[in-house]
């Protein structure tokens, strides 16, 4: 098993890559921080990516 180590000053780890995790990651980069977005599945997006339209305006969710 390989082993690695990463260090970036003031980095933030976000556990969970759904809409909350992604939004937090984008805002943190805007605020000047490096982000590790950690997701247990093979893709990010979470449940929102499964939705067709969103309430109440029925906009597309992707």
């Amino acid at each position, binding site marked *: 098993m390989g082993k690695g180590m*990463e260090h970036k000053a003031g980095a933030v780890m976000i556990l969970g890559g759904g809409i909350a995790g992604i939004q937090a990651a984008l805002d943190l980069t805007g605020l000047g921080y490096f982000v590790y977005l950690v997701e247990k599945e093979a893709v*990010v997006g979470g449940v929102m990516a499964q939705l067709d339209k969103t309430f109440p305006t029925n906009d597309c969710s992707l």
Partner: protein
Amino acid sequence: MEAGRSPNIKMLTNADFLGLEGKPGDFTAKLRLRPRYIDADNCTACGLCTQYCPRHHVDKYNEGLAMTRPIHIDYAQAVPATYYIDPGSCLYLQHETCQICVPVCQSHAIDFSQQPEELDLKVGAVILSPGFGKIGEKTLEQFGYNKHPDVVTSIEFERMTTASGPFQGEIKCFSDGRHPKRIAFIQCVGSRDLGCDNGYCSSVCCMYSIKEALVAKEHDPSVEITIYYMDIRTQGKEFDKARQRAENMGIKFVRAKVADVTPWKNNLRLTYSTLEARHSFAEFDLVVLSVGLESPKDAQGIAKIAGIELNRYDFCKTETFSPLTTSREGVIVAGAFQGPKDIPESVTQASAAAGLAAGLLTKQRGQGVVHKSYPEEQEMGDEVRIGVFVCHCGINIGAVVNVPQVEQSTADMEGVVYHTDSLYSCSQDAQEVLKQKIKEHNLNRVVIAACSPRTHEPLFQETLKDAGLNRNLIEMVNIRDQCSWVHATEPDAATDKSKDLVRMAVAKVRGMKSLPEQTVPVTPKALVIGGGIAGMTAALSLSDQGFESLLMEKGKALGGNLGLLNTTLAGDESADYLKGLVDRVRKSKLIHVVTEAELASLSGFIGNFSSVVASGSGAKKKEITFDHGVVVLATGGREHRPDLYLLGKNNKVVTQQELELQLAKTKKAPESVVMIQCAGSRGDDLSYCSKVCCNHAVKNALKIKELNPDAQVVVLYRDMRTYGFAEDAYREARLGGVVFIPYDVARKPEVYEKGKKLHVRFFDTILQEELDLAPDQVVLSVGIVPEGTQELSKLLKAPLTDEKFFLEAHVKLRPVELSVDGVYVCGLAHGPKPLDETIAQAQAAAAKAAIPLVKGAVSVAPIVSVVDQESCIGCGLCASLCPYQAIEMVKVDNKRKAQTIAASCKACGICASHCPSFSIAMGSFTNEQINAQIAAFGGVREKEKAEVA
């Protein structure tokens, strides 16, 4: 999508969280990365491997409604856009056979030698956003799930209605494939149910059921839909309107508990009991279970590793006054793990969490990030070389518009040197293709026929920049919203219209020019308007991040509505918290507090606002000028005072706020109280639900019972909207003997005086008879109205909702930003909401406001008006008409000429359309371009007419 492009976000997928050591500012997180068995750098997401893979695999993304292969990608726009192999069903990884994918893959991306890797991350802070879990199947089985194929969950139904889903958007019964004519939704499956230990309300199911019902109606207007509910909890901003819309479309709402779902001939039979304890039956083709949000499956594991506490339902434990703070310092929570919530609430919390993390790490700001650089912009050359890209949007466009025909129609157009179609133009791999084609064919103008530029133009502009083109050399044609959606039943006409629009766009881009990018510096300060809890929280959050603010309050003291409350529903003392908050604000060196303040003027634009604030009264009155880069609106609201139920006419009729203060002061409770919910709300004076009144009523009812257990408390309500964990308090009140009786809007309670007695007459929907009570007090839940938003809206040119709350830039994805750049909103000015949501929103607004302050410069939109001073006759009409004061009259060679102030220009085009000498051009919308577009449209039509003749 955007996250996939940032150089400062490293995505670690297939990752298990193993450990977290250390302290804030210096954590070490341990992860294990499971292999994808596909090399991400080589995979082109072509999909060939999935076609050849012989093994079937249940498609989790489609909720098991479809099959895929062990080697697959969930959906076309997935990020990262790399396929992966599920080791659980891969023939090689299970039985060491097959490996057919290895030679099939043209880019040699498949690598079975990959091993799990362990990785240590040094991080300063941690945000937990693991989302939510699924309700157990045992709960679902009570309603026939797994026993009958036509009982589905709401998320399965969602996949069914999705155009890109396994049934291409066709709704059908699993039993025999027929289209259902009668659909039932059963609410609160796995929510508000102690049977499965989920005592809470999941807060989102009412909304998504209404949405899904509306979508099903759109698919087939003849379908009959019934929603069985206990309370319809559409308490969010503008949510009741959607419910109204659903009712108007014929969707039936039945207040009833469903006891059983059983097969009945070819159908399903629902047994349900209504309020008046009557049992009824109804037949349906399809039953949808509105499943709630469970705590994440691995909540306990995450809690143990992260060292945080959970609440009794295994969600992350937090407090009303610090909604995102976990029990471990430096570990912050956001989203549904904090409690069931919808997308805007999750997005708000996410921004707030980012702000809190930033506040912990101000010293390291900017140290770990890399700045994205773009290749130098190429010279465009004289030759027009246009590329046209037409998108299928899955089947969103492709099912109606004949995409290949539209694409082919561009072949002979002047200047078009390349044209193609793609399944999803917005996917990461399609962006790569776009970049590649720009280089390969030396394209210098691009037409994308796809969806709305409102959502996707920035993405394509970014790709153009990556390819070395000026970002204005693109034109988007919306053949989805404007063709396939609105003309869904007329595919030929929709295709013709698409061709027309694309031809016009090609005509327009021929005249496109590179427009220069400009940036202006930002004054790193904020103006926070409103000194209630929202304003104070926002100012403190900005101060934690190192930014100065002017906090202006129109009253004499800070505190706002919180000063009028005594305790929270969770039992916290609000006065103590308020005092602590005011102390922190007063002590902060970065917050300048101005009370009795009024905004005399405000001008400028993001990064460069200038305001004049008048403060004090009498001899102490003064005015100060304050330059700032951003504005946070936290102007709050107040209790509405409806002229109903004798409020203000009989002193025994009070509001919930007045009752709370009375109980706190006297420590005595009346013997009998009748509370009337929605007094003036949801239809009378205010069209909306104020979100907090049900909680407020429950809180006061519990307080009365605590002070006087024998007191009789009757609550007359329409829907009890004690969403989330507040449901526990509602249950406690019921068990404690508080009587809750729903009333019908058509038969509202009446309050009248008879002698010295105060009476309430109402129809008891449970006993089915009219009752008359003579309580000591009548308490009204009166709702909230915004304050001062209209004046500010005019000053800032920021739009309001019909109800005079500020309208956010996007209800889902930009809930604290306004459409005016650099202006943010939080608290009651945005809409009625409880304390914890106000605090999270204020922290989110502060985080968003800090982004331009951190950047130090903002780029000005390149599309601005440009005056041709040669032909300008100096009439000044444009300057007088400009709503943004963005045109000034200057002297050039002693002649009066107009000149645009680029940074203030909003590119509305009023000046250009009124200029009598056609001297004003809008970048990318020049007269020549618009004329070319019109000619391109009319030209072909003329030709067609001639041919017909």
